């Protein structure tokens, strides 16, 4: 028995919508099995994981706080992945944004006010962009693989952040904790709802809408999609691949930087040795689950933010390690990618192969490759 894929005459719009849903269902089933294997009541654990966080206002607030960086980063990454550019170093660009955005409040503790916050945001964006420009330039100038360089720079950024927070930028009056000084109120983003929801969620929604417009209504958006799906056609049309790599990296790096500065000037309120629980990596899953569509990303960021809270929830209720959140997130991405095959292919299960298929003539074989 083996599985065979049969190409659909055209892409299935139904499946494009259903495959993320199917992936979530499969993740829940796999989660059920994991909980049973860990000798935990699976129904109770799944309830706490996926439902419980939605029943209290404080945890819904937490959900929105976690959705914000995920949307910002995933929207940028989706532009990269659509154009076939592989920035996987958003976690480092986030750290760079957090560092650059912290310069003003750390060196000029007395400077406060909306203008200061605005400059902090701009510096955060520029920090993320500058850091993302490194792998982009190394790629366009020297052809160095951007997947590996952008990822290596995550580790480098992590060490720089660690050094700053423990060393030169540590709060002298902070009892040796590896944190910077607490930013004053006039250096923080305004809270718009509840206790922690800052204006950054509005930024995230605007960014998603803008990216949607960029992709649907502008020439750049068209170039992104052409260069992603048919690079040769794009080259013949005169679209520059290197220009696109720069654009994709600068946008995604800038947005990751924005997410970083929004963390330090928002929920954290200071620079710490760690400014993100892996948002830069989780956002990769958000981008794919949202079908690389900025509006889909808003929905999928909700699912992934829920997975963070769910992990904390089952740790408190059942003593399961909160690392289970990362297992759920990884499984989800796997299922999403596998289910995507259903969009272009029908699955046929062949019970038994009686004889080997005749060798296709060479012409047939070459024609099949597009």
């Amino acid at each position, binding site marked *: 028995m083996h599985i065979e894929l049969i190409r659909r005459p055209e892409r299935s719009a139904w499946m494009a919508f259903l495959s993320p849903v199917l992936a979530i269902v499969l993740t829940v089933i796999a989660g059920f099995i994991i909980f049973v294997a860990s000798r935990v009541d699976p129904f109770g654990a799944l309830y706490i994981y996926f439902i419980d966080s939605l029943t209290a206002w404080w945890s819904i607030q937490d959900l929105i706080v976690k959705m914000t960086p995920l949307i910002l980063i995933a929207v940028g990454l989706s532009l990269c992945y659509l154009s076939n550019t592989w920035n996987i170093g958003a976690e480092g660009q986030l750290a760079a944004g957090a560092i650059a955005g912290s310069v003003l409040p750390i060196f000029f503790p007395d400077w406060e006010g909306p203008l200061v916050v605005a400059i902090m945001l701009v510096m955060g964006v520029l920090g993320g962009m500058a850091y993302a420009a490194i792998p982009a330039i190394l790629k366009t100038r020297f052809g160095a693989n951007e997947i590996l360089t952008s990822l290596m720079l995550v580790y480098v950024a992590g060490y720089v952040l660690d050094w700053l927070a423990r060393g030169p930028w540590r709060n002298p009056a902070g009892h040796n904790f590896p944190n910077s000084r607490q930013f004053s109120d006039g250096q923080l983003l305004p809270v718009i709802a509840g206790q922690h929801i800052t204006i950054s969620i509005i930024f995230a929604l605007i960014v998603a809408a803008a990216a949607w417009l960029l992709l649907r209504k502008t020439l750049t958006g068209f170039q992104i999609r052409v260069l992603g799906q048919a690079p040769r056609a794009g080259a013949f049309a005169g679209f520059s691949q290197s220009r696109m790599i720069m654009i994709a990296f600068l946008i995604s790096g800038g947005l990751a930087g924005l997410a970083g500065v929004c963390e330090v000037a928002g929920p954290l309120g200071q620079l710490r040795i760690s400014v993100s629980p892996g948002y830069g990596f989780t956002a990769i899953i958000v981008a794919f689950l949202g079908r690389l569509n900025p509006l889909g990303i808003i929905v999928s960021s909700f699912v992934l933010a829920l997975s963070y809270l769910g992990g904390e929830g089952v740790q408190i209720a059942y003593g399961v390690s909160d690392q289970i959140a990362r297992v759920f*997130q*990884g499984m989800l991405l796997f299922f999403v990618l596998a289910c995507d095959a259903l969009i272009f292919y029908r699955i046929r299960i062949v019970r038994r192969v009686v004889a080997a298929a005749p060798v296709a003539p060479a012409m047939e074989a070459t024609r099949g490759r597009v």
Partner: protein
Amino acid sequence: MGVSELTGLILTIITAATPLLFASLGELVTERSGVLNLGVEGMMSVGAVIGFIAGDLSGQPLIGILAAIVAGMVMAALFGLVTLVFIANQVASGLALTLFGLGLSALLGDRYVSVPGLGLDRIHIPGLTDIPLVGPVIFGEDPLIYVAVALAIGVGWFLFRTRRGLIVRAVGDNHVSAHALGYGVIRVRFLAVLFGGACAGLAGGYLSIVYSSQWTPNMTAGRGWIALALVVFGTWLPLRVAVGAVLFGAISILQLNAQGYGIAIPAQFLSALPYLTTVIVLVLISRNRTLLRVNTPACLGQAFVPDR
């Protein structure tokens, strides 16, 4: 520096290079067949935790190593299923494998964080091992280091001196022609992916059982990614990959020693050195495009759907 210190330094550099060598040799074979598996870090870290647990339960380091290999293969099979059968994007699936593997290993190893590991004795041949410098380095390593060297030579021999190796390279360079000639592209690739998983699992097992002899979450610390870079650095040739592995082993050990001597550079900058070196090395090697073009598998990362 005396002879004994120099011997110690060389020994630790070789031990640091070994997991990199295992993982990059496996990935080299996988990539030669045309599949880019970015999940090395994930397979390594699951190999590390499963190997550690199996070693702890059985009390036998070798059983731990075997379990690590099997765990790496199971992870690789998952990747093979998703990318080769369901033709999912290889880059994204590899990332998924890494994220999943790091999470799964942290979950599985939760209760093993402070458990002491088994370690693996170095071999000792009376007379030979006692020769200064040469003795311990050539005749006094732990058994897996000899396995790593043999693997490097074996992979080179297999790929370039055997018919099956030729088939693997043919599948990686032109899957359409290989298919037309009657070779099972998917089957060959699946086996190559499994080999890559076995090697990554072994690398992980080596880390947790022999190298650090303990389990800590994220203990692979980017070594899987460095192994991926080493394959590019070695331009898909096993012996060059081995040279690269020793080079990186040396950098990671020398920066640790520099931290120990209290050099006036912040420790974080020294720790960042291996990662920065990877970036620089990638840039240097990528500048020479002809060198890369000769050896890069032409179908690397491309999905293949056979038309019947």
